[in-house]
């Protein structure tokens, strides 16, 4: 029987020829990833279980990005635990602040995660790697500790939902709008425990940045992983970055799917997800008058150079509205440097935006843009839960970089078409 790309990657990481939905497997991992929030718990569990040496120092990846550069003494201590472990275990893939960026933007950029890989990350947005045609899933710290010890993870092979996208994208509609639209349509548990495979003519023409954004947010529909079939666009992205060999997989024509969902993208407008769930989406034209105190452009979802270019294109020659804070966060030092070379940072500064160093920071209510009681932000991040970016009575509206940039100028949520 035919297999989906997800099933093929999983099978290849076991000694089995074929796997199918519902099977319990023990799979070998190519990358075991942790950050400053989740790694300390994994390190403690690893030690408690008698661990002395990680299974492979090349395959353990540790990135200080959530509360780094250290936001306070407690987060400094957590980064120190991770850094000491890196020294002790002689971990190859560790990125110190200055070289570090938001993990899910950094690892593809560095060619550390590659097509065909099986990646487990103690961070829910590890599903981002599906954009490369890899199997990436978020797990907890205990799973990471077990992988440190054994190099393996227990998994149930997921069923796959296939999303076939066709038609031409409307102006200002990006990968972010597509994934918000899909989450709005199927709900926050609409793909629970399943794989979401994106295909179709629209997807084949999407650039890598849009694919990363879409794969990144499949967790917001409850999915296990999201995945794209690697193609020429994938190849041109990875070929000069890859630090080792990689494999392109494709789904068989007789692969079995849980469901096939056909979407005509030409009817999709820019989307805004109202609090407190990413599924509360509305077309930009249906938003109404939502005054904002802040706009955030960044995160593992939308902090890539393509996102900053879109935002700068809108902000050029304009100023952020009075009493609004616009916070721009390039996701990695390379993105930061490219934005500087292209003159994007000048545009942001001239518009009165503030530029943060690469960090997850405000996305999860850490620092660098926390909201007070009653404040409202529009944000290119991935979650708008209660209290997500600050006080429990603050509100987060999710959007694309284009909407976030235009909203910063308007002082309310709106489209670049209104400028």
């Amino acid at each position, binding site marked *: 029987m035919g297999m989906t790309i997800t099933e093929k990657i999983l099978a290849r990481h076991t000694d089995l020829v074929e796997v199918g939905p519902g099977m319990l497997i023990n799979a070998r991992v190519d990358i075991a990833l942790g950050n400053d929030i989740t790694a300390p718990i994994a390190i403690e569990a690893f030690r408690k279980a008698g661990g002395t040496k990680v299974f492979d120092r090349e395959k353990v990846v540790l990135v200080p990005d*959530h509360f780094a550069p250290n936001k306070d003494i407690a987060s400094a201590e957590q980064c120190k635990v991770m850094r000491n472990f890196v020294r002790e275990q002689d971990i190859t893939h560790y990125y110190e602040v200055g070289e570090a960026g938001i993990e899910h933007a950094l690892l593809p950029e560095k060619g550390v995660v590659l097509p065909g890989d099986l990646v487990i990350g103690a961070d829910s947005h590890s599903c981002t790697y599906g954009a490369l045609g890899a199997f990436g899933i978020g*797990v907890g710290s205990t799973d990471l500790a077990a992988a440190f010890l054994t190099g393996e993870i227990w998994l149930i092979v997921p069923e796959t939902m296939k999303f076939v996208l066709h038609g031409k994208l409307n102006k200002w509609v990006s990968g972010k709008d597509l994934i918000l639209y899909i989450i709005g349509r199927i709900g926050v548990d609409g793909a629970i425990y399943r794989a979401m495979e994106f295909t179709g003519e629209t997807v084949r023409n999407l650039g890598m940045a849009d694919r990363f954004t879409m794969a990144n947010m499949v967790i917001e529909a409850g999915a296990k992983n999201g995945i794209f079939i690697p193609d020429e666009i994938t190849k041109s992205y990875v070929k000069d970055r890859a630090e080792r060999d990689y494999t392109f997989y494709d789904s068989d024509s007789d692969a079995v799917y849980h469901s096939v969902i056909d979407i005509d993208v030409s009817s999709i407008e820019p989307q805004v997800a109202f609090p407190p769930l990413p599924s509360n989406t509305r077309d930009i034209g249906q938003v109404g008058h939502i005054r904002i105190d802040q706009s955030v452009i960044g995160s593992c979802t939308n902090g890539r150079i393509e996102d900053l270019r879109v935002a700068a294109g809108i902000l050029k020659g304009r100023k952020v509205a009075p009493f609004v804070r616009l916070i721009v966060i390039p996701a990695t030092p390379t993105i930061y440097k490219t934005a500087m070379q292209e003159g994007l940072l000048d545009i942001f500064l001239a518009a009165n935006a503030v530029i943060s160093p690469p960090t997850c920071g405000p996305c999860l*209510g850490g620092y660098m843009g926390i909201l007070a009681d009653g404040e409202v932000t529009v944000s290119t991040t991935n*979650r708008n*839960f*209660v209290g997500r970016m600050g006080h*429990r009575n603050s509100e987060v509206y999710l959007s694309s970089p284009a909407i976030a940039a235009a909203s910063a100028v308007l002082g309310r949520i709106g489209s670049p078409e209104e400028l």
Partner: protein
Amino acid sequence: MKYTGRVWKFGDDIDTDLIIPARYLTTSDPNILDGHCMEDADPGFIGKIKKGDILVAGKNFGCGSSREHAPISIKAAGISCVIAKSFARIFYRNAFNMGLPIFESPVLWDRVSGGDLITVDSDQEWARKMDNGSETFPFKPIPPFMRELMNAGGLMSFLSRRQSGGMAK
């Protein structure tokens, strides 16, 4: 194993930011995290609960972040188990991996009220209200491997006990 405790009810899609807000993720110490469990869902929660109490929630409990601080804070707060219509997948893994008993019941939520005293039998896989004796609410069966994890008290102790050939490779 049997657990008896009072019910605390929560709705659908209780996310991990509600269970433990990220502002407390500067530590993983259970003795600090326990004081903030469910803080943004019900600010007075921690002052009201007693050891052994039980969370009963709607669908998709634990959606959002992979933070294990969420099940850690629930366990450390003294909650004996969580029963939901369904669980988000990372939370589901994490709970079994670190030894927090969780059960799925599509009907219990509609049949109990906050403050009800219920008994949970984790081996027979049912819950029962204490005030009207005999009606039991069966849980969705726990898959055999998850049962092994639960009986071992979590993934790390399961791994240390595991004999070779336990799982398909």
